[in-house]
């Protein structure tokens, strides 16, 4: 990636966000864009873990839920400042990821998948059962909106600006991270743990760092979600949502920052476009997971690009090089 192209992408992103904010005036689209933004935050974080570091989490909705509920409980029940609650959410999720990560990341493959899944289900059950604290299955309402210097983010358009500016910063941070020394170490870890270790990478610390990092993204998304809806209920943070997040990563492309935006965008818009989608939701998500992983394991966009690339090289009679 050459620097000028790199800069242009970000410029394009900023201009697109600005143009939409200037010319669009339908709240419905802003609401949709807000969910795309929140989902993208989650998916970028999960992609760092799953796509780049090659470590699976089948319980990522738990960190999303921890962020959302910490924000919700602290602001609605205790009257804490929303920004402070957001930071508290980050602390809670980060700590939970750290504590669960230490034993869990020693496990590999299926065992790690199962441990994160178990953790996700336990958090989901606690959100449902601890009704004195969380409001139980019927949820927690009365969560105030975020505000900055007297300006409350209480309309879809204002929220849109807030969420997408934060998303832009997070995307830039993530792109920077994966292109840094740490990013190269993460990819080495993905390709071979023993090889990475022989090159002096402390793989366990690195895995833990990425795990906590991706939990922090999820927590941030959760807090924004709570302050966007002004309401949270456990059903948003169940096993199926964790699977949806994995689907978004897989569809957008493993190890692709911009693919995360595509995956989250597609799977957020699709249910809105197709009213029949609701009944077929599970069938479609399941089919996407299977078909993409079987035939295009590097994700939709990368998979198609790879196919075109190898065709072109074959036509030119050359060998495929990377």
């Amino acid at each position, binding site marked *: 990636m050459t620097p000028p192209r790199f800069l242009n992408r970000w410029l394009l992103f900023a201009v697109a966000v600005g143009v939409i904010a200037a010319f669009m005036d339908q709240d419905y689209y802003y609401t949709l864009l807000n969910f795309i933004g929140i989902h993208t935050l989650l998916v970028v974080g999960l992609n760092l873990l799953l796509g780049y570091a090659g470590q699976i989490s089948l319980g990522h909705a738990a960190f999303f839920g921890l962020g959302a509920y910490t924000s919700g409980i602290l602001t609605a029940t205790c009257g804490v400042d929303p920004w402070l609650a957001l930071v508290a959410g980050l602390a809670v999720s980060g700590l939970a990821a750290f504590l669960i990560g230490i034993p869990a990341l020693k496990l590999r493959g299926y065992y790690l998948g199962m441990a994160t899944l178990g953790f996700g289900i336990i958090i989901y059950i606690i959100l449902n059962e601890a009704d004195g604290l969380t409001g139980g299955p019927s949820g927690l309402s009365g969560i105030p909106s975020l505000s900055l210097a007297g300006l409350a983010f209480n309309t879809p358009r204002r929220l849109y600006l807030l969420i997408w500016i934060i998303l832009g910063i997070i995307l830039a941070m993530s792109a920077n991270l994966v292109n840094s020394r740490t990013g190269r170490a993460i990819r080495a870890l993905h390709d071979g743990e023993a090889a990475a270790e022989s090159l002096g990478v402390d793989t366990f610390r690195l895995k833990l760092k990425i795990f906590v990092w991706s939990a922090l993204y999820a927590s941030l998304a959760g807090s924004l979600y709570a302050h966007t809806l002004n309401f949270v209920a456990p059903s948003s943070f169940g096993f199926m949502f964790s699977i949806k997040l994995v689907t978004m990563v897989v569809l957008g492309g493993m190890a692709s920052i911009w693919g995360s935006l595509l995956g989250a965008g597609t799977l957020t818009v699709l249910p809105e476009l197709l009213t029949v989608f609701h009944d077929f939701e599970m069938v479609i*998500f399941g089919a996407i997971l299977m078909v993409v992983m079987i035939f295009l394991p590097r994700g939709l966009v990368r998979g198609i690009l790879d196919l075109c690339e190898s065709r072109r090289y074959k036509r030119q009679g050359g060998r495929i090089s990377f």
Partner: protein
Amino acid sequence: MEIFAPLLQYLISGLTNGAIYALIALGFGIIYNATTIINFAQGEMVMLGALCAISIYHLAPSLPLAFAGAVVLVTCVGLIFERLALSPVKDPTPIALIIITVGGAVLIKGVAMLLWGKEAYNLPPFSGDAPIHLGPATILPQNLWVLGITAIAVAALEAFFRLTLVGKAMRACAYNTRAARLVGIAAGRMVQLSFGISAALGAGAGILIAPLTLGVYDMGTMLGLKGFSAAIIGGLGSMAGGVLGGLVLGVAEALATGFISSGYRDAVAFLLLLLVLFLRPQGLTGGRK
């Protein structure tokens, strides 16, 4: 003695659920031994078993027919699943296989929801529902059916793996696939067979539990996860481990339901799973490395 009466009752319901978990755990173990794959869609076979049996029973009210028909149908689903979803995978890394089988599970569940809707269906117990009094506790005939059929299934499997040529070939593949191929065992066939047997075991578990819990499209996920927990708690790939893990899990859950709160029942199962994973990932019986 006051604590003893409910204790026995919890033990009975715990062992019944535990037997179901054990059947599912064995299914996980058989596929794992043949392929080192964890088939996250195993729980959906349980659900399909229950719902197919219920549908067949509605067409022709005969329980043996419903049982046999459902097992055959679900075995076919298991075989087709292996052909369509797992054999075409070019790069079978654990992550890819987790995602594919989880996708398969969600797909099967979605199709079941379209076919059967969201209602829960009832299957009559195999031999009436007059409770049998056992000291201070009562036991339903269906509990005995569950325990009895599970015991028979485990014994039959053990005999199959120890005594028949095909069973021995499957064990050889589990031990060393390449060496098994060298002595002329068709390893691919053994993989298919393992998916068939696992699906049949799952279906059996679903049919057995349907009269106790009703059959509904989303029953499979939790049962599958608990079956997998049981397999890991006991030691993945070990037959005795799967049975032990299932029973331990079932009893622990029943005790937690009785003495703590029914809401946290599922949390106990997964807490136990995390403890075993973190402290003794090879499982209670040791299992394979």
